[in-house]
Each structure stands twice: as C-alpha cells, then as structure tokens.
C-alpha cells in the first residue's frame, strides 16, 4: 500500500487521476483506517488530503462560513461563531465517535464515507450546506444532499474531492437542531437522525424550513414535505403532527442490526417533532444546550 500526501489541491487531483480505482482518500481516517484494519478494504494507494492548505480551518465573513472539509470536529465544536450561528450542525458533528475520534473526524469525511447514518449530514442538509467540490475541471458547487447516491457511494468523480462546505449566515429568527436515536448515550451509530432548520417572521410564522433525515433510507434525505408542513404555521402541535406524518412517510428503511423498519418509521416522526421544537426555541432566542437525542 502506498501512502501519498499532496501539498496542493492540483497535486491531489493529479494523483487521483493517475491512481487506479483502488485509491482511497484519507482525511481524518476514522472510517478508512478501520475498514483497512478489519480487512474490508485493501487500498493500493491512500492519498492524505490534510496537507492541502485550504482544506482545513474555518473562515467566516458577512456571507457565512467556509469550513475546510478536513477540519476536525473538535476544532469546529470550539468555534464560538459557528456554534452561535448553527448550533444544530455543531451538535450533530459533536456526536460523531468519541472525544478521541473528534480530534480526527471531519465533515468532509463524514459526508464522503457515504453512510446513510452519518450524523452531520442530516443537520447539514437542513442547514442548506453547499459543498465546494474540486477536480480536474476546477471547482463546482454541489448541495450537500446531492453528494451521497447510495450506501458507500458519492456523486463525485474519481478525481474529485470536497475542499470545503459553506453555510450562510443565518438571518434573524432562525434556528436549527439535530437529534438522533441510539440505544446507548454515545459511541453508537444513529438508528434514526433528524435535522431541522427553520426561520420565523416577526409575527412568529415559519417562513422557511428544511428537514434532513438520516439512517432511514439508502441515502440521507431532504424531506421537502416536512418543510411544507411547517412553513406558514406557528410550528404548533398541529404543524408538528403533520411534520411527523410527512417525515415518517419519507422513510424507506431496512430491518438491520440497528433497528426495524417499523421502529425507524415511527421514531423518525418523533425525532422530527422534537428537533423542530428545539429549532423553534432557538429561533425564538432561547438558549438550548446541545441535545443528545
């Protein structure tokens, strides 16, 4: 197995283009190294992206945040402006792995591992994150919900990788939240994960909403019917009931070692309601500690 560490994005693309189909991109390695150790993968080439300058770190300006795709979750969890603007995204990414894993795990890695159960992805979908995808033909923007196409597969070409994720500055009266269900309290994979982002007008009517859903279909989902259930309402019990129905209806889960179809469908609706309530509190300016589902 060869290990390569390109120092620029261009070099990385060239390496990817030149490597065979058995080349794997390494960011934090929290998924890749485990797969190698357990024999699931035997890569010929591992290309470590962490030394590309623009792939790590967070920049913020009036338009929003640019998060380097290989920035560690520990670093993001301590970014006070990001936490204040997108508490739901941060509470989601803080659920990935353990304290030790947080020092390595990254949003780009969590997304490109292409697990339907990735914790950060439903929250990023709800937040409307945009990925900067870099490849031989330069840079292109891809909405986060269009990256994963099936379990373990992304829409990226073989010579492409994600350089950064962008989140807007949220307007006034916005809030987001993420909740997941695991049988334990940590160190587990979501049975269901749900992110909700919403915005209220001055009268308290929901004018914008996005619902992201994980672990209930082959890919993380953007649940448009869920958003429709909230927009134009005060996010009251009736709207939340409609949200639950819409969210459950969007599920296309499987029975597996982590949950049954019936269970996932039911709990998706429950979590959507609870995440929407948390997002609503935040939109109304209530301080809400990070939630663990």
């Amino acid at each position: 197995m060869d290990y390569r560490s390109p120092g620029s994005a261009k070099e990385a693309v060239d390496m990817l283009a030149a490597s065979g189909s058995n080349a794997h991109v390494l960011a934090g390695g929290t998924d890749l190294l485990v797969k190698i150790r357990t024999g699931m993968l035997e890569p010929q080439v591992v290309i470590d992206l962490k030394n590309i300058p623009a792939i790590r770190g967070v920049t913020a300006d009036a338009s929003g945040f640019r998060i380097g795709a290989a920035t560690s979750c520990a670093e993001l969890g301590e970014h006070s402006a990001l936490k204040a603007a997108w508490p739901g995204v941060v509470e989601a990414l803080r659920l990935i792995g353990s304290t030790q894993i947080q020092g390595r795990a990254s949003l780009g890695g969590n997304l490109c591992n292409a697990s339907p159960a990735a914790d950060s992805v439903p929250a990023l979908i709800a937040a409307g994150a945009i990925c900067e995808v870099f490849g031989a033909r330069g840079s292109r923007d891809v909405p986060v919900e269009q990256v994963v196409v099936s379990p373990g597969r992304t829409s990226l070409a073989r010579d492409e990788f994600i350089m950064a994720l962008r989140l807007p500055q949220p307007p006034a009266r916005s809030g987001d939240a993420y909740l997941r269900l695991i049988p334990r309290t940590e160190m587990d994979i979501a049975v269901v994960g749900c992110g909700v982002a919403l915005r209220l007008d001055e009268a308290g009517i929901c004018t914008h909403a996005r619902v992201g859903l994980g672990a209930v279909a082959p890919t993380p989902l953007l649940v448009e019917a869920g958003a429709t259930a909230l927009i134009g309402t005060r996010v009251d019990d009736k709207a939340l009931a409609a949200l639950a129905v819409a969210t459950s209806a969007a599920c296309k889960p499987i029975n597996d070692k982590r949950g049954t179809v019936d269970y996932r469908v039911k709990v998706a609706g429950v979590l959507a309601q609870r995440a929407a309530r948390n997002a609503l509190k935040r939109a109304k300016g209530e301080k809400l500690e990070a939630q663990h589902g």
Partner: protein
Amino acid sequence: MNDMTTTSLQQSEFKIVGTRPARPDGVDKVTGRAKFGADLYLANMLVGKVLRSPHAHARIKSIDTAKALALPGVKAVITAADFGDLPSEFIPAGEMMVNFKDMTRNVMAREKALYEGHAVAAVAATSEAIANKALKLIRVDYEVLPHVMDVVQAMEADAPLLHEDMYTINVEPRPAKPSNIAKRVEFALGDIAAGFAKADIVVEREFTTQPVHQGYIEPHACVASVSEDGQAELWCTTQGQFIVRSFCAKLLGMEVSKLRVTASEIGGGFGGKTVVYVEPLALALSRKACQPVKMVMSRVEVFQASGPTSGAKVWVKMGATRDGKITAAEAVLKYQAGAFQGSPIQPGCMCAFAPYDLENVKVVGFDIVTNRPKVAAYRAPGGPISEYGVESVVDELAQKLKLDPIELRLKNAAKEGTKAAYGPKFGPIGLVQTLEAARAHPHYKVPLKANQGRGVASGFWFNIGGETCAALNLGEDGSVTLVAGTPDIGGSRASLAMMAAEELGIALEHVRPVIGDTSALGFNFLTGGSRVTFSSGMAVIEAARDMIGQLRERAAKIWEIDLKDVTWQGGYARAVRDPAKKPLSLADLANTMGKTGGPIVGNAAINAQGAGPSLATHIVDVEVDPETGKTTVLRYTAIQDAGRAIHPSYVEGQMQGGAAQGIGWALNEEYIYDAKGHLANPGFLDYRIPVCSDLPMIDTVIVEVPNPRHPYGVRGVGETPIVPPMAAVSNAVSNATGIRFTELPLSPPRVLKAIEAKGASA
C-alpha cells in the same frame, strides 16, 4: 482438607483488613508498564493465525494445506490431525464440567465445523501479512449442512443434529434416537401439586434471554515456545495458569511438568478466560516450528468463537397465599450450550429459587446444543438466567398481592437453617439483612415521576473454595514476598497482601504480592467461583501462621526458652514469662535467620472448604421514553453481603461491575445472526455493552454477615452482583410502562412495540 473454623480476630481488632490502601498493581497499570497477554515479545517469534469456518454447520471433507506450507515465511501449519483424539470424559473446571473429546474439537474442528468462526486450521509465519496470505491458500472442502440457532427449534425432533452420538442423559428409558438435548436435570423438594393447591394466587410466565458475551476488553492472547526436547513455556492471559497447563498438556499429549504456564496481567475475564482457544494452537505450531509463536485473537474472532453465556427459555410458576407466603415454585429451564454440551444448566437450576425458604419446589433443566460458539463461564454462570425469571415472577406476585416487593421477599427469605431445594441447609446468610438495608435506603423512598419506574430484585450465588497453595517468602530484611497461584482479576493481590500483613502484624508496605507461574507453587484451581479472596486468603493466612510458628521457634532458640513461652503479637515475638527480654521483630528474626536455622518460608497447600453463599438485593429506577421505547437508568443501588470486606473498594468495584454488566444484559446486549447463521454484530459498535455515560454512579452498601468457615469471615463477592440486575431493570421497566416484560434485551424497538400494542388495545 482444611477447615479453619475459628475466627482469630474480631472486627475491632483488625488493623489493615477493612481499610482501603492503593492496589499494588495500580502504578504499573496506569503507566502502561503492566504486561498483558499480547505484550510479550521473544526473539524469532512467529505470528500465528487461525483459519475459521465461514459456515454455521458443515462437514469437513478435506483440508489441503500444501500451498500454504509452501509459501515462503510460513513455518508451520496445523489442523485437527496434529492433535490426538481424546475420549469422552467429564472433568470439573470451575463451575462447569469439561469433556476433552469436545475440547479438542472446539479448539480445532475435526469432523465438522459447528459454528461460524470455528477454527479449522492455523498457520505460523514470520509476519502477520504472510500468515494472512497463507490462510487464503488453505483449501477446505465443506459440505454445508442445515444449522439451528434457536434453543426451542434445536429441541424439535426434526432439527438439524449437531452430534450424531448425543443421546439425552438422565431420562428413562434411554432415548432411541440422538438429539440436540445433552441432558436433563431435576431438583425437587416437597409436594409441588399440594403446594399450588394451597395458593390463593398463581403467576406463570415464560421468559427469553439472549446469549451475552463476557465483554472483556482484552482479547485472548498468548506466546508459546516449545523447544526441540519438548519442554515448553506458555505466557497467556487467563484466569488459571494451572488449568491452562492441564488442558493444554492433555490436548497436546504432554506431561504437565514439561509445560510451564505464566499468567499475564488480565484485561478482564468474568469467567470467559477459564477455557483455552489459541493456547493449544500456539503450542502445537511452536512444537512444529521450534520457534516461539504469538497468537492474538481479533475482536471479531472473540465474538464469533469464544464463549458467551447461554441464551435460554425460562418458564416459572409460583403460587402464594393472600398474605404473601409462597406455597409452591416450579421452573423449566432450557439453556443453550452452543456447539458442545455444557451449559450452566445445573447451577441455573440450583440457584433458581435459592433465595427463598420454600417447602415445595421443582426445577427441571435441559442442556441443548446449537450452532453457536460453545458457552463459557460468565459471572455466576447459569444463576442470572433462572433468577431473572424467578425475580420477575416474585415482583408480579407482589404487584398482584398489593404487597411491597421487599416485604414479600422478607416474608419468604432464606436464612440460616433454611433447606435449599438443591440439598444443603444454609449456614448464616445475609439475604434478610440486604432486604432490610434496601428498605431503609434513601433510594427506596425517592418519589417517581411520570414514565419512571422502580424495580427490586434479589440474587444468590454459591461461591466455591478448592485447591489452593500460597507461599510467603521471608526476605533477609524482614520484607515478605507473597506468592499466590490465582490470577488477580479484581484486586486480589491487594486483599491477599492485607491478610498476610494483618496476620503477621507488619505494615502492608512490607508485603509484595505476586502471582506465581505453574512452577512456583503446587496446583491451584483457577480464579473463578468468587473463590480467590476466600481460598487464597485462607491459604495466605495459613501460610502466615506457618511462618509465625517458625518465627516463634527461632525466637525460642535465641532466648533459649520453651516454644510455648513465645507468642507472636503485633509483629513481634515476645517472651511471655520474661518481659525483660526485648521483643524480636520480624526484621530482627529475618536478619539472623541464616544463623538460627536457615531460610523461613510460610507455606500452605489446602483444599479450601466452607465458601459461604453471597446474597444481594438491588434497587433501580428507570425512565422509559414512551415515544421511542428507550430506557434510561436514573439511579442504581446494589446491596450485598460480603461476609467480611477485606478491601471495601474492591468489593464495591465488584458490585458496581456486576451491576453494569447486568444492565447491559438487560437493556441492549444480543447476538444478531442472519439466516445463514452468520453473526452480524461481532464488535463493540453493535454488540452494545453499556458505555460510561449510560450508567449513573452505582451506589453500594456492603452488609457483613461473617462466614464462620473463613478465619476472617470472608465470602466471595464477585459473581452475585450480576444476578439481580436483569430482573431489577425488567421490573422497573414493567412498573414504568404498566407492561410486564418477559423477553431480553429491553431494547428500544421491543419496548416501543409493547407500548404501542398496549395503546392499541386500550
């Protein structure tokens, strides 16, 4: 036979026993200096790897190892052909019986592979990469057979048969056909029909429990080195170096004295390291290669091929009068043994109703083989399964009688003089004391909120003694090396050193406890059955008394007085009739021992008798999320009779550890097999033992009802704490939801389904 029935010291006289000094192995463990099973490296050491069956049940038609052996770097390849076959004979090991015909087949499949992960061949090579490559070159021709995973299905007449020669024993007449039912056992007392006739109320339930793994963090690991003349060394992580020696010598056809086994530090055992897996394979590979061979199991291998405890079907029926007197109790237990017979059905039957003073009892048990890894001992093997069913029914009886569950237990509690259904009359035991302590505990009075429930359960375990040696070697400066033969899996070095220091009357810092290898002492039975603080403690006290006798003789010699006029008190030899003679300290006598008669060694070689049962009562509060079915443990209190707590912190540690494992068993732990009999969750990600944040601080209360058969009153404490949690948690969840649960684990999907079914029927 040794029987120390006199308690030489009263509690108030103890200076060291009952205190909480730092453990002697602590610094090595927190600095990473301690050597665990995989930490030994020898020159020219090879890596051993195992080829495992991909099938749950298959006949092995042929194995071709030629290509693997031809691979450069491969030094040895073994299959079952490298082990002689052994006859069917049962030998007691720990709390279970072993059969060497089965053991040789479990460590290396012979005619058939009986579970996914069953070892089929092994290689030793100069690197892990070469060893892995060699495994892929071994060609095994399998005839895949139908398999059976479920205990009830395995009992059916047309079930796939694992062993063509298995005829159920203890049934009359002998069955005409073989089956997967290895044996039937029965214990009875009184007249069960008459007992139920007297009952005003009868509760009858069938329970299901899942096989659960011991979950030790350290996988099985060893290094074996066999020389050209057949002398062998083995370093391994084990609960019993002497048992490993017995087993391996038998499997390899060696004399036991040719094999020296050293127990490494152990990263958890809980019963699961009382058996051998890679150890005989490493020895066989090393014998062929004449080089040291290291083998370390992966976590996947640990889950696929090492012993869990049984899953079971447990049927319980109990009757009581209106005022809460239990009149009859009956149970039928069906325990999975895995691929080879030997589930803990016998202790399971014996424990089932042991906490209660009953006139009419009947327990019938079955030992059943299935295409899963062979079970191994796990903390109170068998007890938690049957007692979960019984304690759930006791809770339901209390509910229906509108009696407090502690009150109902107190009305029926076994005490000194109670005759157990399995035979003996109990000596002093502490169930009543734990129940009274539970009722008085502040935890029991905390008000509960919506969706919260409280559960109570009691538990019983026998504890054992057995063959034990200890030596105290007096150093020339008066310090003492304590050699014990029982691996320290729960802080026993601290406790043993404390007992030696207490008896000798010296400061604890002058006693260094070590665990000897098999050449250091006579035979020691393994660390299991909660026997070490009891048995090795008894041996250490006897060794100390032996040493004191020698010290008195030396003093008598120096003073030229009669031995009977020399006493040993507070670490000094004293001349009783001549107070003017300056007392001689242990160091004084050690300094001069070369001139007064030579080295001083205190020895004990005993068969410790009189282990007293330990009983416990646990209280747990839970909250159940009615929309997700998820259970959160809010508060937990474990109360247990320790006889005498030598080092209370390690007694509490045992109580907390057992409770934590029991909570995992209750809430989330289960093996998930697919239709082909392949394990879908062979790792800690999806085999869900509790993580730290899942548990509240587990409160403990130690009750001390001294065991009169131990000089300091010790009872074993390590196993009882895993007995009550499953029923306690299940009773709490039942009380929180108003639904009586009878199936483990109480995972969120199962609980939510029951809540929804209740809502639909309401």
